């Protein structure tokens, strides 16, 4: 079955119950603007005007309006209520004009249990004097909070870091108007006051913070949370038995959001085991005093709340430690925005309760009614004022004299604090804030120091559901309206490095916006050195070739390699052809043609047939051209004394294949004579007796690179037999092939390399060939290269020396 929590005592009640079974408070608020309620022309317009309005609030509003009408403007600087300015928008304003309900409040003479318990608790002596006056039930309803304010000095909300003994600003004694002022106090007796007080004191939070926390915070008001108890009893601590940390819902609704605010308001509060849960609220309606609803039963007014009590009452949930610092930003703002004329603020600083005093159990000390605000409206909390009737509301709208209320002894012994708060708070242990909560504390730079104004100076809320209450964080001028940050606001500390980085980032971003012109292509430097070297080399080669001037004499010295080669060639059988392998690129033809010419000429002169082959595609054309050029004087005829086998594809693998089985490696020929068209080159009479590599009279490999020469030397050696292998090489390949020639088991039988050796061979042949014609150009070019290298070396060395000297 669904349950409804009582807004006063937070006890669960059946859903269909109209009043609370425990405290008698109305569970279902009366709707403002209903048929049963008088319409109010100047009813405040508030966003929640269609929301159900609690009857106590309605009574408060109506009473406040009534008081306002009687007394008029009390304060010049008090904030005008919204309804006076053309209609209060808030539902609370409408309550001011609400007809007092006949059935408001508990029946006369009915003393709720919580109030009875409160009376019992009032028996306890109070450490500090308090002036709590129980409202006289017979007295007409007046602004009891106004009376409290008038009788109690305004207290300041403790500053941040102040002694925890300082209590909140609302230290005015509670002055019930008709004797039922302490009804709400009595209700709190049923709560776990210890939890509230302990929690409050531990966290050092203002008792107001209790109302600023969500209902869930009720559970954290654990009396055992704070271990430090300096002995200051709190009358709220006697209100035991209630729900642990139970705050009435309506109080919770009035609370500011967030626990942090509550923490910051009242840090450093002590936690007392007996800390009461009594909420400290500003029940003041703007500009009006709301009297109590009716004659209140004789109650033992709670002792005057001291700062500790107030602090502990405001402990938010989850806080069980004391803190020496108080962050009272919210409270300071609250006080700043509240005027002194705001009524309804209960200055708890002036309320001191001595729970231990037995006299306090008997009578309630006087509780000063809070000063009446300019609007004169006080929030009417019917459930707190037991037995209050509409008449009381009306009659006591102007004045709620607690002095007429018979307070219990314990309450009478409660004296308000002087307001300083430091004197009597020494024995209270400073509230501690847990580490996790301390970590949530914003940095000092973001913590503006807020001075909490006295209660009288606090403005009265004029809009919203909290209209008429004092000490409320005003929505409009503070929160809703934009305002400039205070001087002590958040200041970003920037180091020089960070500033420089920020500047750099800004420059980078700005550069992105700037159009960067296309980079001008760098001026190409002329390759002077390359041109110079090219010109020198070209001239060196061309001039002797063009002029024909014999600049360089023919060497008389003959290479020692030439003799064996000539001997081999001169001893070759003439009936066996010689295989010449042309394995070089066309680019090397300039040198190798000149080097190979004397050997070919020697072979042709002896009448030895030549068969060519190449492992490169460009080899056969080279062979054809060279043989034709050299063999012209010897009537060389293709197919008769010269035959071209053509291209041997496959690279080194093909060499081995050809060496092992030449007839299988070459199937056709290259530029075969017309009579052999369509036939294989092996059909030629030149190759009639050739079936393997060893059938050739000699194998001469013309190569420019060492790899080709090595391949032929290594791959063909097993199949050569007695056939000599001769290498015709470029000058650069000779050193690496010489070991094949000079080994004990040479794989190469002769070497012919370089233009000088070729020239000497030509001399032996008695003919001047290509080597002779290129000798001068070759010499001049080499001579130029020598001097260019010397010049380069000198240039490099001089530059290095000069740089070293400069360094």
């Amino acid at each position, binding site marked *: 079955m669904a349950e409804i929590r009582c807004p006063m005592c937070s006890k669960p009640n059946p859903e269909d119950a109209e009043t609370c079974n425990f405290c008698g408070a109305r569970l279902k608020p009366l709707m403002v603007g209903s048929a049963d309620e008088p319409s109010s022309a100047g009813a405040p317009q508030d966003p929640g005007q269609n929301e159900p309005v609690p009857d106590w609030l309605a009574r408060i509003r109506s009473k406040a309006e009534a008081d306002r009408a009687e007394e008029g403007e009390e304060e010049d600087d008090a904030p005008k209520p919204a309804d006076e300015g053309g209609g209060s928008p808030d539902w609370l304003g409408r309550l001011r004009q609400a007809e007092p309900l006949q059935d408001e409040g508990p029946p006369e003479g009915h003393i709720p249990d919580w109030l009875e318990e409160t009376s019992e608790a009032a028996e306890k002596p109070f450490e500090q004097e308090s002036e709590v006056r129980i409202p006289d039930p017979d007295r007409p309803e007046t602004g009891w909070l106004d009376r409290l304010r008038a009788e109690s000095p305004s207290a300041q909300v403790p500053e941040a870091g102040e002694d925890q003994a300082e209590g909140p600003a609302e230290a005015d004694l509670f002055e019930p108007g008709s004797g039922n002022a302490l009804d709400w106090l009595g209700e709190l007796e049923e709560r776990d006051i210890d939890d509230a007080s302990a929690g409050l004191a531990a966290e050092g939070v203002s008792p107001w913070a209790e109302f600023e926390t969500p209902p869930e915070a009720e559970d954290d008001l654990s009396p055992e949370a704070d271990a430090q108890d300096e002995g200051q009893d709190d009358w709220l601590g006697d209100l035991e038995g209630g729900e642990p940390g139970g705050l009435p819902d309506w109080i919770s609704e009035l609370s500011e959001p967030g626990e942090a605010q509550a923490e910051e308001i009242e840090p450093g509060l002590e936690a007392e085991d007996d800390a009461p849960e009594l909420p400290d609220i500003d029940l003041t309606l703007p500009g009006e005093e709301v009297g109590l609803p009716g004659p209140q039963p004789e109650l033992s007014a709670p002792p005057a709340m001291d700062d500790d009590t107030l602090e502990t009452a405001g402990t938010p949930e989850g806080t069980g430690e004391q803190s020496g610092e108080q962050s009272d930003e919210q409270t300071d703002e609250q006080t700043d925005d509240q005027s002194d004329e705001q009524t309804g603020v209960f200055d708890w600083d002036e309320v001191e309760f001595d729970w231990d005093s037995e006299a306090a159990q008997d009578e309630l000390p006087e509780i000063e009614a809070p000063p009446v605000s300019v609007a004169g409206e006080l929030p009417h909390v019917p459930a707190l004022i037991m037995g209050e009737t509409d008449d009381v509301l009306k009659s006591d709208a102007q004045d709620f004299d607690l002095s007429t209320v018979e307070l219990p002894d314990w309450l009478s012994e409660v004296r308000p604090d002087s307001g300083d708060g430091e004197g009597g708070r020494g024995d209270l242990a400073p509230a501690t804030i847990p580490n996790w909560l301390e970590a949530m504390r914003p940095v000092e730079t973001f913590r503006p120091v807020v001075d909490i104004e006295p209660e009288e100076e606090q403005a009265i809320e004029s809009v919203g559901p909290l209209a008429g209450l004092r000490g409320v964080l005003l929505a409009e001028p503070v929160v809703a309206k934009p305002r400039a940050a205070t001087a002590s606001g958040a200041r970003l500390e920037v180091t020089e490095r960070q500033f420089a980085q920020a500047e750099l980032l800004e420059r980078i971003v700005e550069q992105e916006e700037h159009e960067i012109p296309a980079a001008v292509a760098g001026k190409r430097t002329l390759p002077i*050195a*390359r041109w110079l*070297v*090219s010109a020198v*080399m070209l001239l060196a080669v061309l001039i002797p070739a063009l002029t024909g001037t014999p*600049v*360089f*004499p023919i*060497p*008389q*010295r003959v290479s020692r390699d030439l003799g064996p080669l000539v001997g081999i060639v001169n001893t070759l059988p003439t009936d066996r052809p010689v295989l010449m392998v042309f394995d070089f*690129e*066309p*680019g090397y*033809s*300039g040198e190798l043609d000149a080097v190979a010419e004397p050997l070919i000429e020697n072979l042709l002169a002896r009448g030895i047939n030549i068969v060519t082959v190449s492992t490169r*595609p*460009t080899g*056969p*054309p*080279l062979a*054809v*051209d060279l043989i034709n050029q050299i063999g012209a004087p010897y009537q060389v005829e293709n197919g008769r004394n010269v035959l071209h086998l053509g*291209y041997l*594809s*496959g*690279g080194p*693998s*093909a060499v*081995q*294949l050809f060496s*092992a089985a030449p007839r299988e490696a070459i199937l056709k020929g*290259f*530029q075969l004579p017309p009579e052999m068209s369509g036939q294989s080159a092996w059909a030629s009479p030149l190759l009639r007796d050739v079936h393997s590599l060893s059938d050739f009279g000699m194998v001469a490999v013309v190569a420019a690179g060492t790899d080709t020469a090595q391949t032929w030397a290594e791959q063909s050696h097993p199949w050569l037999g007695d056939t000599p292998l001769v290498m015709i090489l470029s*000058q650069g390949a*000779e*050193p*690496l092939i*010489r*070991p094949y020639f000079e080994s004990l088991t040479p794989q190469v039988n002769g070497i012919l390399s*370089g233009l*000088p050796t070729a020239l000497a061979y030509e001399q032996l042949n008695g003919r001047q060939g290509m080597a002779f014609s290129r000798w001068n150009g*070759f*010499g001049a*070019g*080499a*001579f*130029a*290269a*020598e001097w*260019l*290298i*010397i*010049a*380069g*070396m000198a*240039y*490099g*060395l001089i530059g*290095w020396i000069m740089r070293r000297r400069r360094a």
Partner: protein
Amino acid sequence: MKLGIYVVWAAVATATGLFVLLGYFFQLDLLFGLRLLLIQWAVLLAAGALFLGLFNLLSVHWAKVSLQEGGWPYSALLILMFLVTLVLGLLFGPDYQAVMLLFRYVQLPVEASLLALLAVSLTLAGFRLLSRRRDLASLVFLGAAFLTLLGTAPWPVGADSSLALVVGDLRAWISQVVAAGGARGILLGVALGAITTGLRVLLASDRPYGD
């Protein structure tokens, strides 16, 4: 490519390489014949790969001409001459007179010119070597190059002088002893590197044929 197919290719490559390699060491007719067969297949594949490479070359230059990229006229000329030579060679054979003319008067002079350009480039590199890389190795390199040139090229004067003989012998000693010895060492190292490279392929660690 899935893992299974990749393993097959690796297995084929490894098996082929092992057969050819073992054929060099073991004089078995079966291995010898298998080695020859595989080598012949390799020759055929190399010829086929040559065609694929030429097709790849054509596609690159065709794309250049199509997109009008930088140097596209040269690509167009290349494609034209390629097609002309290909058609002539296919129709009339590589020893056809026209093809020989192309070779004799185009390819041969071009390549000879490039080699001549190499001579100039090498001379220029020798000229700037010590300026760019000033170390002992460069100094020795240039000195050896100078001595070799001096000992190989003819002297305008004193070709038969004793100095020329000494320089000639020095050149022979440098090229046949120092250079040859160093070259031999390099060749040994290259051979070792080639062995390990080939073994990595046989062990399927390096897979140039892709995964």
